[in-house]
């Protein structure tokens, strides 16, 4: 049975995602995941999230998927030990050294290679399998044909993002944002924070979405060039992904409101259940689903464009000068 994996940036969102029908929830400990800290949780909140998820019959995964520093591996392992003792069902990770050490210490813990690992081909999957990863997140640029090849050739769980951003660059292989603005601070627990670097756990300023002028030498050739970075919802592909045997359909969006995330999750729960209950071989009508999704998408687009505007404005602030409201 395909798993619906939902995001949670706070405890009410955990409750909303469970109520919406998620089979699993992922959360990020503060400073250790690919989102800004306001969408992450303290360790106590992670503990509470595990209990809420389990109480609602869902699994809870912990995203410790920053590219951490060498000296942070030891505190990460201590943190992971707590999460495992509280019943976390899996860890989402990126750094190959951190993955290998977690697998060595917790051999039964399911480790998911994060989107930040940028797994692009079947040999990538074999590499990550060999160091202890059992599920991989497919890059958003991969085609169904490439996913099918993976499914046929390799014994690995595949996770596909069904609501996420498709960046111009490969995710995990881009540092355009910190090139323009990086602000390093240390939180109350001694964790380095890298505001501006999504790979290192800080926010992404989305500088790719700036309206760029294109110059050849001194001559302006284009007044406005966009490096595409589109948020998407998958719909028509969902039946194909289920038929393909994809293990997990993942919704991203810890930064959105609790009601919006709950609506996204409920939408995909209903869609998946309807498709699974539908007679095989019969044409599945997507029209009513398209209408329902359009309303969710409009709300998401408004929220995202507001967020992009604020991020680009923040990216222009001198380091140390910006204070979030």
């Amino acid at each position, binding site marked *: 049975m395909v798993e619906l994996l939902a995001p949670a940036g706070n405890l009410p969102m955990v409750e909303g995602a469970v109520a919406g029908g998620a089979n699993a929830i992922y959360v990020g400990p503060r400073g250790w995941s690919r989102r800004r800290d306001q969408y992450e949780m303290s360790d106590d909140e992670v503990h509470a999230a595990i209990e809420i998820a389990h109480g609602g019959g869902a699994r809870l995964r912990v995203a410790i998927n920053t590219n951490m520093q060498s000296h942070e591996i030891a505190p990460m392992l201590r943190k992971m030990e707590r999460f495992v003792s509280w019943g976390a069902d899996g860890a989402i990770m990126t750094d190959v*050294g951190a993955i290998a050490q977690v697998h060595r210490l917790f051999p039964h813990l399911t480790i998911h290679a994060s989107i930040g690992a940028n797994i692009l*081909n079947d040999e990538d999957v074999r590499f990550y399998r060999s160091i202890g990863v059992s599920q991989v997140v497919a890059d958003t640029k991969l085609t169904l044909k490439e996913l099918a090849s993976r499914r046929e050739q390799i014994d690995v769980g595949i996770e596909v993002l069904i609501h996420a951003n498709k960046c111009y660059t490969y995710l995990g292989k881009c540092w*355009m944002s910190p090139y323009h603005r990086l602000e390093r601070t240390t939180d109350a627990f001694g964790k380095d924070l890298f505001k501006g670097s999504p790979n290192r756990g800080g926010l992404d300023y989305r500088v790719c979405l*700036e309206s760029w002028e294109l*110059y*050849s*030498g*001194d001559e302006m050739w284009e007044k406005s060039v966009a490096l595409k970075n589109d948020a998407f919802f998958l719909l028509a592909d969902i039946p194909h992904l289920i038929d393909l045997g994809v293990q997990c359909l993942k919704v991203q969006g810890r930064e959105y409101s609790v009601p919006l995330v709950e609506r996204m999750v409920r939408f995909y729960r209903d869609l998946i259940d309807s498709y699974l209950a539908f007679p095989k071989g019969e044409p599945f009508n997507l029209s009513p689903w398209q209408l329902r999704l359009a309303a969710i998408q409009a709300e998401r687009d408004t929220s995202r464009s507001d967020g992009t505007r604020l991020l680009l404005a923040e990216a222009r602030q001198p380091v140390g000068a910006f204070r979030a409201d």
Partner: protein
Amino acid sequence: MSQFELNTTIANLRDLRASDLSDYDGVYLGDIYCRIYEANFLEQLDDLKEGIRILRDQGKRAYVTTYAGPRNDFLPKVRKMLEASAAAGAQAVEVHNLGILKIAHDEFPQLPVHIGGFANVYTAPGVEVLREFGAVRFTPNYELSLDEINEITTACGAPMELLVHGKMPLGISDYCFLLDYEEKWGVKCPDLCQKELFLKQGDWAMKSVGKGILSGKDVCMLEHLPRLLAEGHRYFRIETVSETPGYRSEVAAVYRAALDRVAAGDGEVNEGWWETVRRHARIGLCNGFYFGRSGMDYAGVRPDAIGSLLTISRAES
């Protein structure tokens, strides 16, 4: 062998033949971004063999790089390229993708592997994992500061290769947005990315090579070479894959002279060297992330030196 290695990247045979490599110790052959980059060594295997021969005849170390974003359909060609590289006597292959690392380790164990900047080396335990797959040299992720790089070398003694000058890679895509403008500009692929193209907005700038996005400013560690040598670094890269042969040779001459002088105990930077690096930097100079700041920042005793002579001369005229 000298106390350090200075190397660079060249994408095709034409550029290799046009370049004066006398100040380099080694060259990585190939363009990591795009399969249809003009006459890319990674696709033209006869050219690749010839390139390796030319380098070896000149007494240079011949390295071959590999694609940074290889999908399944790249892999058959990658295997052929690795086979050709090994047969032609390449001294190492650079990998940015861990799937290619696994192929190199499993199928071409005689080829030493250098880990490239897109392979996301951030930690010492990460280096240890990659060593188990045959890696012998490591370019840390460009986001790391010198302090963080030293933390890795202290923990595991791994030799690091550092970008000391040139455009720093910022991202790679599977899509070339320049193709959208072929008709409008009247310039076709593969000539599109041969133009010197910059994305600009205010004081922000990035260089575009189609599927690759590079820093607009040139990373410049000229005045910080004493620190790099003192901290034990020996492998230095001048990134010139998207630059002219003139840039390639003149900047190398500066760094060769500067490194020789530092190795002899004198870290002073010659004014002529500043003039050369500024003349070749269209946007200006930066330090990347080496000092824990935004990548486009410059930290040094010569902040007045970081502007581009191109910009200054335009303003004056």
